C-alpha cells in the first residue's frame, strides 16, 4: 500500500516500445492497434448493477454498482477486507451475488460458473499463484487455448492431420505470447521452478492465451520488487494498448494504480465509497479516511 516508484513509473511506461516487440504484438488479433486506444473508452462491456453478496451474516459486498467501458483500465482499490477479491470473483462467476445483476457484453450472468464466464471472453490471474505446477511454461500457456481446440481426442493422440495443424496454429499464438512477455528462455521449465516474478508473468500469459476481451488481474504486482513491477506495468499497458483488451485490476500499490488506471473504484467494508479518475479519487476525503483512518492524516498523503 505504499507508493513505491510512483515517481519513475509513468515515463518508462509511456515511452514507445522497441520496434521488435511491436510487430510481435501486431500479428495478434486485436480490435484496435492504435496506441491511444485506451484513451478512447468505448461502450460498457461490464455493468455491475446494485449487487450485494453475503456469506452467512457477513456482508461482503453491499449495493455496488459501476460500469467498465471497453478498452479502459479500471482499478479496484480498498483496504484489506474491503471486498475487492469478492467483487472479482462475482464478475468471474465464482460467486453469485444474492441481489443485483452483472451484465457482461450485454449478456446477464445468472446461475453461471467460472468456465462459462471464461468462454465468454474473460481471462483472469490470481493473487496467490494458481499455475499448473507440474507443467512447463509452454504447457501452462497452451492450456489457456484449450477450450478453443476442436479436434477429437483420437485425432490428437495420433497427431493426425487436422489435429496437428490445429496444435501448430495454437502453438504459434502461444509462442508470440512467450515472446511478448520475454520468457523465451524458460519455455520448457516447469513453472514451479521459476522465481516468483516470472511465475506472475506466466499467469498473465495463460490468461492472454484465451484472447480475452476482459482481463481481470488480482494483485498482479503483489510481492514484486520495483523492477518487476515496472515490467508488469509495461505488459499490462501494452496489452491494453495493442489489443484493446479491457483490464480490471486489484492492486495495493497506489503509485502503480494512479499511473496506469483510467478510472478507479474504491471499496471499503463492502461499500463503494468513490468512483472516478485517479485525480478525483486522490483528492477524495472519504478515500483518505478509509486508508489513513482519519481526516488528520490527510495532509501526509
Amino acid at each position, binding site marked *: 500500500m505504499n507508493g513505491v516508484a510512483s515517481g519513475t513509473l509513468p515515463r518508462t511506461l509511456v515511452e514507445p516500445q522497441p520496434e521488435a516487440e511491436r510487430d510481435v504484438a501486431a500479428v495478434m488479433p486485436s480490435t484496435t492497434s492504435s496506441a491511444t486506444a485506451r484513451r478512447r473508452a468505448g461502450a460498457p462491456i461490464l455493468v455491475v448493477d446494485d449487487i450485494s453478496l453475503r456469506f452467512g451474516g457477513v456482508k461482503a459486498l453491499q449495493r455496488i454498482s459501476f460500469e467498465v467501458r471497453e478498452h479502459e483500465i479500471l482499478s479496484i482499490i480498498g483496504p484489506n477486507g474491503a471486498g475487492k477479491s469478492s467483487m472479482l470473483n462475482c464478475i*468471474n462467476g*465464482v460467486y453469485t451475488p444474492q441481489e443485483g445483476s452483472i451484465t457482461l457484453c450485454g449478456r446477464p450472468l445468472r446461475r453461471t*460458473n*467460472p*468456465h462459462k464466464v*471464461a*468462454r465468454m471472453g474473460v*481471462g*483472469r490471474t*490470481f493473487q496467490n499463484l*494458481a*499455475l*499448473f*505446477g*507440474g*507443467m512447463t511454461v509452454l*504447457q501452462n500457456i*497452451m*492450456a*489457456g487455448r*484449450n*477450450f478453443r*481446440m476442436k*479436434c477429437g*481426442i483420437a485425432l*490428437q*493422440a495420433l*497427431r493426425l492431420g487436422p489435429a496437428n495443424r490445429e496444435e501448430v496454429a495454437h502453438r504459434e499464438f502461444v509462442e508470440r505470447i512467450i515472446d511478448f512477455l520475454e520468457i523465451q528462455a524458460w519455455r520448457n521449465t516447469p513453472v514451479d521452478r521459476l522465481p516468483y516474478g516470472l511465475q506472475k508473468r506466466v499467469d498473465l500469459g*495463460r*490468461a492472454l*492465451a*484465451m484472447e480475452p476481451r476482459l482481463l481481470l488481474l488480482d494483485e498482479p504486482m503483489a510481492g514484486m520488487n520495483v523492477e518487476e513491477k515496472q515490467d508488469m506495468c509495461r505488459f499490462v499497458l501494452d496489452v491494453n494498448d495493442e489489443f484493446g483488451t479491457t483490464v480490471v485490476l486489484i492492486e495495493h500499490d497506489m503509485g502503480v494504480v494512479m499511473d496506469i488506471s483510467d478510472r478507479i473504484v474504491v471499496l471499503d467494508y463492502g461499500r463503494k465509497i468513490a468512483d472516478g479518475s485517479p485525480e478525483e479519487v486522490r483528492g477524495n476525503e472519504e478515500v483518505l479516511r478509509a486508508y489513513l483512518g482519519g481526516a488528520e492524516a490527510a495532509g501526509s498523503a
Partner: protein
Amino acid sequence: MGFLLETIIGGLMAGVLYSLIALGFVLIFKASGVFNFAQGAMVLFAALAMARFAEWIPQWLGFESALLANALGFIVALALMIVVAWAVERFVLSGLVNQSGVTLLMATLGIAYFLDGFGQTLFGSEIYRLDIGIPKDPVIVADGWFEGGLLISREDVFAASIAGALVVALTVFFHSTAVGRALRAVADDHQAAQSIGIPLGRIWVIVWSIAGFVALVAGMIWGSKLGVQFSLSLVALKAFPVVILGGLTSIPGAIVGGLIIGMGEKLSEVYLGPLLGGGIEIWFAYVLALLFLLVRPQGLFGEKIIDRV
C-alpha cells in the same frame, strides 16, 4: 539361479496387475483429490458386467463366436462404467465440491458398498467364468541358459503386455491431447483450470470413465485368472500399499510400486516363508507400506509434502 529368476518374474507379473488397479486410484486422486475407495468395487462391477454380458449377448442374438461375445461384453461393460462415472459426478461429487478430503473419502466408501451390492443384484453373486482366450499353459524359455530353462505362465505374459500397452496409451493421452492437458490442469489447480474455461464436471466424468476403463481391464485379467467373484474387490486392497509406495500422484509410481510389491511378496514368501512360518504374502505389502510411510511419506515418486510449521 533359474528358480530365483522364475520367482522374480512371477512376482513382476502379479505386480503388473496390482499396478493396474493402483493406476485407477492415482488417476482419480490426481484429477480430483479424491482417495477413491470404490476402485476395488469398480473392478468387481466391471468384471461382473463383462462376464455376464459376454454370456447373455450370444444367447439373445444367437451366435457362437466367443471372440465377438467377449468384444461386445467388453463394450457394454465399458458403456456401463461410463454411466457409473457420470452418475458419480452428477449425484455425489457435484454436491460435495470444496468439501474436505475425509468427506469425499466417506462418499467413495458409500459408492464402493453401493456398487458391490448393486452389481451383485444385477448380475448375481456366483462365481462366473470369464474366458477371454488367454492361453493358460506355461511355456519354458531360455532353455539353453539354465538347466531346465525358465517356466513362465503365458497367461501372465499376456496380462503384462496388456497392462503395458494400457500404460503407454494413458501416457500418450495425458501428454499429447488437449483433454489430457485439461486433466493435468485440473489436477494441479481446480480454480485456475476453471478460469481458463475448463469445465470441472465434464473433466471428472472423463477421469472416472478412464478409471472405470482401467478397472474393467484389471477386472477382465484378474477375472480370467481367478474367476469373477466377490474377492476381486478385495484384491484391490493390495493397491493401497502400492500407491503408498509409489506416491499417490504418480503414474510411473503406480507401475513401479506394483512391480516392487508383487516381486517382494513372492520373494519373501519363497525365501523368508520357511523361516517365519509362511503366509507372508498376505501381510508383506502392508508392512512395506508402513515402513515407507515412516521414512518417505510421499512415496517413491510422489510430490514432496512441505507443510508450513
